[in-house]
């Protein structure tokens, strides 16, 4: 019995450590907003990936479908308006808005695992392209969010 309690206590301790460790990693010292380093991974997309054509570019339904997917899977970190949060950068930044659709698709597929962005290849390819279509439709940051974030 004593052994089981000790093992359970050790397990609980390790779980707390993992929460603390994870928290440390997902709360970077720098602010995401206005820091161009967080977008550097977009430039790492290989030329072949960058050149991929978005099959939903002219699909009028894709923005709405992408918005649904965004709300379900991405808004939690990137914010409801995709303006970014402490956990993840803004998707309205010009680095993202000017990026090739293929580069955004590549980031969605591969994640930026060491910076806390998970791999999203579990979403079928079509859904990832629908997300790309929605992200591209966002445009620059909303004036309200700029006002809110300025010191």
């Amino acid at each position, binding site marked *: 019995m004593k052994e089981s309690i000790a093992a359970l206590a050790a397990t609980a301790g390790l*779980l707390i450590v993992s*929460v603390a460790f994870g928290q440390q990693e997902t709360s970077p010292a720098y602010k995401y907003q206005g820091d161009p380093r967080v977008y550097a991974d977009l430039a790492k997309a290989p030329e072949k990936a960058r050149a991929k054509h978005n099959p939903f570019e002219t699909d009028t339904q894709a923005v709405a479908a992408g918005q649904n997917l965004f709300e379900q899977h991405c808004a939690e970190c990137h914010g409801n308006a995709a303006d970014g949060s402490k956990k993840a950068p803004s998707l309205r930044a010009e680095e993202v808005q000017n990026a090739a659709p293929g580069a955004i698709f590549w980031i969605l597929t*591969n994640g930026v695992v*060491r910076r*806390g962005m998970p*791999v999203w290849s579990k979403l079928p390819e*079509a859904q990832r392209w629908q997300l790309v279509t929605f992200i591209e439709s966002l445009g620059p940051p909303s004036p309200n969010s700029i006002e809110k974030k300025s010191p």
Partner: protein
Amino acid sequence: MNSSSVRCLPGIFFLVSLAFVTPVVRGQESPYVVTYDHYLEEPGNLEIEYFSTFGTQRAGNDFHAFWAELEYGATAWWTTELYLEGQTTFNESTIFTGYRWENRIRPLKSEHFINPVLYFEYESKNGADKILKEVEGHDVQADFLTPNADARKEHIHEIELKLILSSTVKGWNFSENILPAKNLSNNPWEFGYALGASRPLAMKASATRCSFCPQNFAAGLEMYGGLGDRHSFGLRNTSHYLAPAVAWNLPSGWTLRLSSGFGLNDNSHRFLLRWGVAREISGFGEMVTHMFGGRR
């Protein structure tokens, strides 16, 4: 229900309450119950899961085994899980059978054709454990014939390793798990496997939010079984199962899974009906940090 089972109830009640009152996020879960793919929990999120397995027993009492699972995304490359498990053997008793602590680590930074994940688990359970979360060594259905009162006297400390290999091609996921496990009381290494293939019912998401849209469903097939031990590696005296499975990812944040497993030889249980419910809580890590005075 004995006293140790009763002591677990407040904990289970707390976990279920937590799932109702905290912000949720919708996961995109696979239908697998036994097989692991390479997708880890999103960092900072906690998934609370409950699973049931009803199994038929040849020449003995059927059983209902169940477990609660707390899955936490420590980072985007490390997921840690705690299991609490129990079982009811019909015409016998309901007992708590133990706990296990599991870790999955993704060694590669980006997506590849085959994506490896390293798995390490410690189990502290008694001999009455029937959850069949994996099948290993010479596990056979006759092992479950020992009455609960006797089986629970045996204490098992076990480590289990897994190499998870998983690929996603054109919407299909193919996963292969190879497992060596070692009972720490001087038993030989035992081996097992799990294979799975699955895909969502629709590749495109619909423009409207809906519960019954085909993209919310994923269907698949699992096969799992034992491969003997270090002294007698192979299929002799081992059990194997084939299990079609389906998952329903609801927009409200709940995931339901259903799997019916069929024993492939006389050493296997004839039928295993498994079902599970899961809910993912977003920002759990932040909540805990805030609780202990940290900044949000």
